[in-house]
């Protein structure tokens, strides 16, 4: 059989097809946001300021990437914020400042805990078939409870080299060459790149496809021979790994754990994912665009800060911008879908 390339009558040209992809509206919004931020903050593009920005934006980016994975699989995670707190508490609970080796142990134990968290969420949602919203809302209190048990007040111990997850420059004993890397490549960016590589490898295997299939139509995926419950568990475990990476960054930055700081992140990750063009109904979206969504959400706050808007109005404006961003991308995706199918014979 000769594979031929043909052009169905409905087809748009290659460029047009690229532009009408629903996610791409978020890129447009990002460009506008960056332009506004550049205007308001004169030194936006200067090296030190950019590094600060990346450090501030990094955690939400990592968490949103994880949220994107569960959203694409047709589920949702409302426990990622408290899970983040839990991991920082476990890390600082295990580590001893005077024993550098305890850092490795803490990482291994926390990673195991993260996998467990993913399995618990995924098992309840995938096998027990409880609504993901209910499951993860409930487990968020579980994680909070355990975190408070381990660390009733913020604090704890951390090994010195953990600072490497935040800034190489503060780590004594590292060769000067590596330490200088931090001035243009902050560790959080490395963590994000690590997440991207992790996802890229996954998406080259069947799992990436299966996540989309289960999120798109669970029944069809099941009939096609996919173990849908296992796919959902995998989604939650992958999500946990991203949350774990964010926890490494936080402990590196603060050298302490806090049972209460993570929760406000939860809903922001969902908003960021939606702004990044990931459908709450599942099956659609890319985790690379989750990064774009997280950048937009963070830039909104930054712009409001630099525009000198009073705090009370600030949150109001932030809310309005998020609604416009989400509404705009929804309208746009509806329009682009119609454009792609227009002219097709019924």
């Amino acid at each position: 059989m000769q594979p031929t390339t043909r052009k169905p009558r409905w087809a748009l040209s290659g460029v047009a097809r690229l532009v009408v992809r629903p996610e791409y509206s978020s890129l447009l919004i990002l460009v506008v946001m960056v332009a506004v931020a550049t205007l308001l903050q004169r030194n936006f593009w200067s090296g030190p300021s950019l590094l600060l920005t990346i450090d501030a934006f990094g955690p939400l980016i990592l968490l949103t990437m994880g949220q994107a994975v569960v959203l694409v699989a047709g589920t949702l995670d409302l426990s990622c914020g408290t899970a983040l707190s839990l991991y920082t508490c476990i890390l600082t609970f295990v580590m001893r400042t005077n024993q550098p080796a305890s850092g490795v142990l803490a990482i291994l134990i926390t990673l195991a805990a993260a996998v467990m968290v993913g399995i618990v969420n995924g098992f309840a949602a995938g096998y027990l078939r409880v609504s993901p919203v209910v499951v993860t809302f409930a487990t968020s209190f579980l994680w909070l409870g355990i975190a408070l048990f381990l660390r009733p007040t913020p604090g704890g111990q951390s090994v010195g080299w953990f600072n490497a997850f935040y800034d190489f420059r503060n780590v004594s004993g590292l060769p000067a060459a590596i330490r200088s890397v931090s001035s243009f490549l902050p560790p959080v960016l490395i963590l994000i790149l690590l997440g991207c590589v992790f996802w890229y490898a996954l998406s080259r295997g069947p799992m990436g496809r299966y996540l989309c299939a289960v999120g798109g139509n669970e029944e069809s995926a099941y009939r096609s021979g996919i173990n849908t419950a296992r796919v959902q568990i995998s989604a939650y475990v992958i999500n946990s790994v991203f949350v774990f990476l964010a926890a490494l960054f936080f402990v590196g930055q603060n050298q302490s754990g806090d049972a209460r700081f993570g929760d406000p992140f939860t809903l922001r990750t969902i908003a960021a994912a939606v702004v990044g063009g990931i459908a709450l109904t599942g099956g659609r979206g890319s985790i690379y665009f989750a990064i774009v969504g997280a950048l937009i959400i963070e830039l909104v706050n930054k712009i409001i800060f630099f525009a000198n808007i009073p705090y009370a109005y600030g949150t109001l404006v932030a809310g309005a911008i998020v609604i416009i961003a989400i509404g705009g991308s929804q309208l746009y995706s509806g329009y682009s879908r119609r454009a792609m199918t227009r002219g097709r014979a019924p």
Partner: protein
Amino acid sequence: MKILEARGIRKRFGGVVALSDGNLGAQEGRITGLLGANGSGKSTMSKIIAGVYSADAGEVWYNGRVVHYGNPHEARADGIAMVYQNLSLVPNLTVWQNIVLGAEEKTGPFLNNRQAREHARAIVDDLLPGLDVERIVDGLSPGEMQIAEIAKAISKRPRLLILDEPTAALELAQVKSLFLHMRRLAGQGIAIVFTSHRLWEVMEICDDTVVFRNGQTVATLDLEKDGRDPAKIIGYITGETARVAQAAYHRRENRNAAILRVTNLAQGTLLREISFALKKGEILGIGGLAGQGQRELMLALAGFYPDITGHVELDGRRLRLTSPAEAVRNSMLLVPGDRESEGLFLRHSLFSNIVFPKLGVRHYPLLTPFGKFREECRRTVDTLSIRTTGLDVPVRTLSGGNQQKVVVGKWLSFDTRVLLLSDPAKGVDVGAKRDLYDYITRRVREDGMSVILYASDNQELVDYCDRVMIMYEGRVVAILEGESITTDKIIESSMRVDSVREGAGDAAHH
């Protein structure tokens, strides 16, 4: 060689017996046609073989041994692939991704997408040249989706391929191309079971045919030896009992003027150029095979498709079918087919369900006269003989028949000009069905109400309708009147026996 032999299969769903004595065989290299009216057990039989359901009794021999499949994967592993009536495609993936879904080609741990694309493209090119495998399934036409579904089943290299009404969504040219492919597959020694409602298709493509009626296998024919006689097969499908039709309703010649005039109603592929007139005080039946647009026509008239095209006139006034509320305002009231999801608030009380539509059309700014409503509700319960222990029990606790009466009852106090009944007696017991139709025929005679009745049971059409309109693929293909309303005639028109000859003639040309 006989690869499949299913004997004495029984299957119940709750109180409904779907199959009482199902028998079906299939041979390698031959195409077996599966025929029967709606609800005769064809789909149930296919699904038992494919492992979707398990049989209550009877045995399935496959490849020389008795098999009991717990799920479709086990059957698939044994080489049984089924193309489902409701498809198993994932809408957000491309055609080729769907075709290889669950059985992806891999190089090491990674997907080999190039190989998968080529594999999928090769299969699709055979079935429907011109379908781009890179397209997202969401944007395909129903026919293209069906082809993708078939390609998916074929890609698993089955030894037994079950096709459950694969042609329902296809155009004639696509059907012809599918048939060529089926022949080729049969030539490779694959056994094929082919279900279709179109008799001419079975006549053209099948080597054997098995006829189901009321959950039983009533005939197994070798079309080569026994001849391709459509009349005889229709006889098996309808059965002798169907000929004894007793009219419960005395058809009258209706000289009234038309109350509803529909011209060129069209909605995508669901409804095509539908034109008809409904007279005042008439019960107009809609018949045909399942899924030919009857349900959609009812929904369309009730205003569920805002972007519908065509002209609808009610009492000489142009009616815009823009929303259900608009239809209700014009006294065109729908009793929907799926009462559990479209007609009732299952967990709410009988009273709430009956009162609810009133709150929508009238406004009571200060106080809702619940006392008056309860009185009305009590009358409704009496009029329709709804069997209930009180007005405040949740509707979900009533029997199916009484639930259906509630759906009708909520419109009772409305001035009804046109009542749209979408399969009102489906899953309703005999007594409740009689109560329901008694009430409706009384309203028609006494108040001059007009009714459009879609019923999946042809007997109901024969018993209660003044005229019967037959739909096929979204079109009105025949209107039966007076003496010609018999179940036989309805089935003949539904299956388009006249086009059997066309189909045969067409085949002779090639």
